[in-house]
């Protein structure tokens, strides 16, 4: 008997696009008729792969297709992929929220999922009542919850408010309490999806620590879905990369992350949706020029050029341009201006221009917001916060330290030692 705890075979999930409700009755009848005659489902054979950038010919898409993989006991599997790759669908099937269209999954042990923390929390109930309710929804019995109650309250840090209705909680307290309940579930297999997107930095650290605890010390199996590459690298042993509903690669985590970085992020274009007739001067797009390539991601400390395309229909006399890089909490990570290093105001004749800032970004992995502005005579002419975020990805781990102690600046140090005296 092997120690495989999850075995996924030929898993597929088909979704119907468009408005549900129009034509479903006729489709239902069609299906029923085909079934009666023992024919194949007329809607199952058509269907495109899950590529939302191109318009498919069919109303049905395979959100997941031919998924095969196995997870062994105690393994922490990171499931990664771009938006819409099918990660969430896979987790939904695994956690039995929805049924697959084809294939099967064999599971050994109890599965609990943290698809969204705080499910079933009722605002009118007190913290105490919600712990019991939420715990029961997640599959714990009353006795199990009672035994863990003190630990849960302790972990959440809301002891003082435990008998207050949760509608009076701050959103932070709410999330803490919710996560605390889930964190003390004791399933053999734990599914975690982006829960770390909530809460403050300190609490996130606590959550990551708890997950590590669960997998390393308790030997439980964890499936972890996240866009936070640093967290994935830190926690996971193996990785599953999904792309357009198919398994792109399934191996140890560093191989999979490498594959992830080499898949071009073609959804992202750095462009701007703007009514071009309404404005005289506007930014058009941004990108990073790395060698010959234009992209929206880079490695820390890579030499690159930050490029902004700008259109002006009116002449600008005393112009300056600057941009900022901001982190997830809106904190400014970096800011620069064209007048830095004794640069001068410049003149801009009507036309399309490209502004280039040569920089290197020694900052840690993650998603960052780009905020760019141009001013004339100290008056803002155009200001744009791009919807495309800058992605920083390390190909390999550049420090032995864990993420919680390295900080945002990722500059390598040179270490040497000299003996400067004797005792």
């Amino acid at each position, binding site marked *: 008997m092997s120690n495989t705890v999850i075995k996924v075979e030929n898993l597929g999930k088909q979704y119907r696009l468009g408005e549900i409700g129009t034509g479903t009755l006729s489709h239902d009848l069609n299906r029923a008729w085909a079934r009666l005659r023992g024919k194949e489902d007329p809607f199952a054979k058509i269907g495109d792969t899950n590529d939302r950038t191109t318009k498919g010919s069919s109303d049905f898409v395979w959100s997941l297709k031919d998924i095969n993989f196995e997870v062994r006991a105690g393994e922490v599997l990171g499931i990664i992929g771009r938006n819409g790759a099918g990660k969430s669908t896979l987790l939904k099937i695994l956690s*039995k929220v929805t049924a697959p269209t084809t294939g099967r999954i064999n599971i050994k042990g109890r599965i609990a999922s943290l698809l969204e923390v705080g499910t079933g929390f009722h605002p009118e109930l007190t913290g105490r009542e919600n712990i019991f309710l939420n715990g029961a929804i997640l599959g714990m019995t009353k006795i199990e919850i009672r035994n863990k109650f003190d630990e849960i309250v302790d972990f959440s840090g809301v002891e003082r408010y435990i008998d207050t*209705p949760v509608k009076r909680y701050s959103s932070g307290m709410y999330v803490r309490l919710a996560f605390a309940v889930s964190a003390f579930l004791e399933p053999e297999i734990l599914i975690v999806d982006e829960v770390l997107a909530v809460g403050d930095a300190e609490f996130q650290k606590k959550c990551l620590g708890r997950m590590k605890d669960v997998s390393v010390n308790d030997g439980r199996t964890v499936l972890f879905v996240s866009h936070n590459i640093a967290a994935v690298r830190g926690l996971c042993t193996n990785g599953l990369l999904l792309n357009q509903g198919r398994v792109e690669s399934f191996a140890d985590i560093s191989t999979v992350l490498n594959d992830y970085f080499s898949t071009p992020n073609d959804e992202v274009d750095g462009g701007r949706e703007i009514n071009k007739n309404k404005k005289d001067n506007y930014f058009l797009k941004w990108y990073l020029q790395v060698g010959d390539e234009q992209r929206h991601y880079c490695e820390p400390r890579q030499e690159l050029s930050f490029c902004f395309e700008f259109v002006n229909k009116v002449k600008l006399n005393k112009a300056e341009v600057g941009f900022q890089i901001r982190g997830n909490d809106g904190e400014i990570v970096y800011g620069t201006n064209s007048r830095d290093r004794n640069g001068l105001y410049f003149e801009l004749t009507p036309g399309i221009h490209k502004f280039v800032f040569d920089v290197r970004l020694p900052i840690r992995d993650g998603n960052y917001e780009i905020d760019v502005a141009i001013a004339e005579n100290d008056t803002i002419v155009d200001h744009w916060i791009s919807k495309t975020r800058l992605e920083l990805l390390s190909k390999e781990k550049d420090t032995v330290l864990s993420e919680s102690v390295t900080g945002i600046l990722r500059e390598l140090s040179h270490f040497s030692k000299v003996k400067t005296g004797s005792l």
Partner: protein
Amino acid sequence: MQTVEAIKSAESARLTAPDQEHWTEIIEPRTNLLDLRLGDVWRYRDLVMLFVRRDFVSNYKQTILGPIWLFIQPLLTTITFYIIFGRVAKLDTSGLPPFVFYLAGITVWSYFSQSLTAVSTVFVTNAAMFSKVYFPRLTMPLSIVLSNLVRFGIQFGLFLIVWAYYLTTSSALHPNWLLMLTPLLVVLMGLLSLGLGMIFSALTTKYRDLAMLLTFGVQLLMYATPVIIPLANVSPKYRWIMVANPMSAIVETFRYGFLGSGTLNGAYLSYSIVTSFIILFIGIVIFNKVEKSFTDTV
């Protein structure tokens, strides 16, 4: 879809044939219709009770009158019926004081109708929770029926007070041993509303119009139940409509036990029992089928 699955499962059966592993759970596109997984529901029984509690607490928190609202609703309806059907239309109530006659019918009926409407929209109202985490979905309709049972208990208390008052002041009431059947009748109503509600819940997820139709339909169904007009007063030509309604025998038997007037017919009651169980069974089967895919349609 069936054939595709058949091919796929045949394939996987061939692939996995030699492996004799002990899997605790298998997720597949479709399971046997009769695999009702009632054991799962039993394992989550604490959850059912917590849902009941949640329903109750959340409904009456921050209301001034709290559970007193439970008395107001049947009382006002009874007074309305009393004035309109008793005084204005002067409908016959088989010689019983109209007030207690109507209250008996309304108490029983409102349990049934409220459970039914709540159960029938269970997927739509709980979509947010259902789409995030799995627990045996049957716990939800079950808890709805139970929390309505608590409400019924309180309203039944009100009925008992009124009933006791009439018992001491008038000689029109002839309670008999049949009132011992009340628990059976209540359970029967619970199961019937559960079953019927689950059948409708499956349909309302896909075709939202049915939810509207149902709230309206339940109101109409009351007139096909001897809540206002005793079964005996319905002309034989139309009586079959009432008799076909499994709720009729329940209301009549309830009233017969407490008030001593009405039709008591063993065949009708047995019909109600059998129908309730059949409907319940169909309801569970349909519900189990829908719960697996409803997140995609709701």
